[in-house]
């Protein structure tokens, strides 16, 4: 699908025009028909264009109804139109006459009815474009009403056959444009749909363009790219495994029985849906926006990680793989994988950096208790990134009976997409719950990001809504020290674990071990979709230090009786900062991705003085 042409029509004043000229519109339209309420004088339009030049690629369209040649020439004296649009019952021979006289392409407006297609055929070879509109008895042109768009492909096909352009007009606005895009129109003509109180609205134009872009950019694309990011940067020996996974995943996601089983398991086994809790005392204490918590900490095993482990575990079983392998940093994803392996009767190997094995003894024991084999990784820096390398290496060699269950929205395609899709339940539930609770969407949503699976799952269903999305990276002891995991703030583009993304590395490209008080956030890369969302400014990423995190932990414990995971406390700290800048009428939803029992030891050690991680 290619990006549709956009025509913003009926510009009535300098500001309307200026907005269109600085927008993504391919065509800017003016109505020179005195009978229209959007009529403008050509002298004025000429002045606007002189004052503020349009973009080179943009074309100016003049709209007329049964004009005389003199009228046309008069307008052209002041405005260098690129296209003449005729919006009445002009005949084929009249079009020929105009075309001959003004030497410009002529577009014909066609009113949608049963005759429309045959009418288009009559103008074949004469019209250089069509605008399909709805006509009412009283008014020529622009009625602001939509017609049944199922016939759009017929019009598009006919125009394509003639080798000309075709715009769909009438009643298109930011709320319904996605519907229209399903029918893949060549162009969209908008007037009242982007107006508020009779003038063009910047907000509506931006909203519209964002929706068009989102629909057109269904990410990831076939190469597994989110814009520039993602892809499959893996050894040839892994390509087969990824191809097999991609096709297995595609089949599963298209099978309603699989989707049902996934949701049923989430409900019966993990206790979903998780609630949204209003943090009343905390909100009062901060004074500012209201804070709400999406309680992923109430999942089975105490964090959102289980959502993805259930999804991939069921997929592994469906694909006939009897063995799971996983990587783990602090052990949370390892525990979730070991859990689902036990539940589904699969064997489980967890690769864990030797250093992590030593400092996370309790989780190692938990995994072993669940029947998993924990394999200490002694290569490289002996932490999460090396555990991931080792799991990938193991998978390559054992692909025939083994499924690699990655724990975050990282790795080669299709992992970032698959993990996102198994985590989006967080955002989907939140949306429905918040609407029910407040009758509107939250103003802001905050989540933490290491690899970024809880934030991706939370944000994804809100990407197209008017909701501000903010994410906390681990700032450690400060972005400007050597001790942080602030990948977007301090990293550069590069390849890690099979994906092109941002990563923390030295000048030559060697990957540097990151630091955070929270073992779940110290990953040197970040999910490629996050890198993309940062690049288009859809999500705002900020780093939160260890100190700010601990303050948030204490606040939530004392005021709400909830002990958050250190990861989730990063999101909370960011939300608290944000809340102070907002009003009591505004709401912030925080993804409380996990509970903090696992961190009690680290928290105690730090609060009593002395560092974390030795």
């Amino acid at each position, binding site marked *: 699908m290619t990006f549709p042409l956009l025509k913003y029509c009926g510009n009535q004043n300098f500001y309307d025009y200026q907005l269109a000229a600085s927008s993504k519109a391919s065509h800017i339209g003016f109505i020179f028909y005195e009978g229209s309420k959007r009529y403008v004088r050509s002298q004025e339009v000429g002045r606007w264009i002189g004052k503020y030049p349009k973009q080179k690629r943009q074309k100016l369209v003049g709209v007329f109804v049964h004009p005389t040649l003199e009228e046309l020439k008069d307008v052209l004296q002041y405005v260098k139109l690129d296209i003449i649009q005729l919006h009445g019952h002009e005949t084929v021979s009249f079009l020929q006459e105009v075309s001959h006289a003004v030497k410009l392409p002529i577009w014909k407006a066609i009113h949608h009815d049963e005759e429309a297609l045959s009418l288009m055929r009559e103008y074949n070879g004469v019209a250089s474009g069509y605008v399909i509109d709805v006509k009412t008895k009283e008014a020529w042109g622009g009625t602001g009403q939509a017609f049944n768009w199922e016939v759009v492909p017929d019009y598009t096909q006919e125009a394509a056959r003639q080798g000309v352009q075709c715009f769909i007009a009438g009643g298109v606005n930011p709320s319904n444009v996605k519907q229209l895009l399903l029918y893949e129109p060549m162009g969209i003509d908008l007037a009242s749909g982007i107006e508020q109180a009779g003038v063009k609205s910047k907000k509506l134009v931006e909203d519209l363009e964002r929706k068009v872009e989102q629909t057109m950019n269904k990410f990831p694309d076939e190469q597994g790219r989110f814009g520039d990011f993602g*892809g499959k940067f893996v*050894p040839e020996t892994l390509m087969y495994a990824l191809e097999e996974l991609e096709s297995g995943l595609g089949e599963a996601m298209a099978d309603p029985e699989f989707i049902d089983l996934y949701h049923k398991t989430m409900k019966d086994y993990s206790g979903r849906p998780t609630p949204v809790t209003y943090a009343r005392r905390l909100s009062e204490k901060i004074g500012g926006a209201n804070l709400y918590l999406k309680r992923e900490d109430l999942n089975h095993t105490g964090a959102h990680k289980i959502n993805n482990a259930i999804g991939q575990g069921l997929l592994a079983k469906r694909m006939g793989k009897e063995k799971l392998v996983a990587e783990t940093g602090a052990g949370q994803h390892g525990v979730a994988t070991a859990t689902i392996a036990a539940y589904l009767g699969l064997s489980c190997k967890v690769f864990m950096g030797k250093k992590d094995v030593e400092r996370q003894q309790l989780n190692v024991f938990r995994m072993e208790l669940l029947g998993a084999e924990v394999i200490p990784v002694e290569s490289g820096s002996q932490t999460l990134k090396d555990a991931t*390398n080792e799991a990938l290496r193991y998978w*390559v060699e054992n692909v025939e009976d083994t499924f690699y269950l990655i724990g975050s929205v990282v790795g080669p395609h299709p992992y970032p997409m698959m993990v996102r899709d198994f985590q989006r339940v967080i955002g989907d539930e939140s949306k429905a719950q918040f609407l029910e609770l407040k009758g509107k969407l939250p103003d802001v949503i905050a989540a933490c990001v290491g690899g970024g699976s809880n934030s991706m799952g939370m944000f994804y269903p809100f990407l197209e809504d008017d909701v501000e999305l903010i994410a906390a990276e681990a700032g450690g002891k400060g972005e400007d020290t050597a001790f942080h995991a602030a990948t977007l703030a301090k990293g550069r583009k590069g390849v890690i674990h099979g994906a092109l993304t941002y990563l923390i590395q030295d000048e030559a490209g060697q990957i540097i071990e990151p630091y955070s008080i929270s073992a779940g956030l110290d990953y040197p890369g970040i999910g490629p979709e996050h890198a993309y969302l940062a690049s288009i400014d859809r999500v705002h990423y900020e780093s939160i230090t260890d100190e700010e995190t601990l303050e948030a932990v204490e606040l939530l414990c004392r005021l709400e009786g909830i002990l958050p995971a250190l990861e989730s406390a990063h999101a909370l700290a960011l939300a608290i900062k944000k809340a102070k800048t907002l009003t009591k009428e505004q709401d912030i939803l925080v993804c409380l991705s996990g509970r903090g029992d696992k961190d009690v030891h680290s928290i105690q050690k730090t609060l009593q003085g002395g560092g974390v991680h030795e």
Partner: protein
Amino acid sequence: MSRLSKTVSASDKMHFIPFITAGDPNIETTIDLALMLQDMGASVLELGIPFSDPLADGPVIQRASLRALAGGMTLSKAMDIVPKMREKGLKIPVIIFTYYNLLLQLGENNFIKKAIENEIDGLLVPDLPYEESAALRSQCREHHLALISLVAPTTSQERLERIGKDSDGFLYCVSSLGVTGVRKTFHPHVLSFLQRVQKASEIPVAVGFGISSKEQVQQLKDYCEGYVVGSAIVREIESREDRLQSAERDQAIEEIRETLSQKLLF
């Protein structure tokens, strides 16, 4: 025809393509080893660049990477070793074996420019599969630098044909699944795989991953034009790490030559 293509297409001998990691354990050793390997009859030298996260490599080459990184080796520095090898008499083509992130950070254009200046003949990027390599491939071609493609026993017939038709220098066939490293046995279908590869490609075929003995080479010789040996060489370097960094270097290298000659040459 490039020096690399001429070399690997010439004669019906089985080409010996050794791999060593640049700077393992130091630059002097790398230069001396290159000359020694040429003297042993190597047709092409594969010069590995150490990386912090070598996904395609087994433990032996991982450790070589760590040793070289400890000495501060980088892609750029490794490329600067090649002219020094040439000064001392290295005539055979040199291929740089680097993970993609290192290439990205140096910059593809910078790499190509430097490769030409430093008389480097080719490039192998183990984590850049065919689908991601189009831009780099055409740039390399423009500058007569061979971007070596890899295929594996699990590569589908359709991809094999696409890769086979669009490759330069020689086609690198991975003999076993998994990472680099010495193995007793090849993938069970390796011989039929090599026959498929020969059909799909017009350029010479070399086999790598897991080759450590002349018996294995014998087994392969009717099915390919060359063989790559990495870990089996690097292991010999590793066991003489200290001596290679002392006054005993010449002697240690002589020992490596003898061991490899016995094991690999026939």
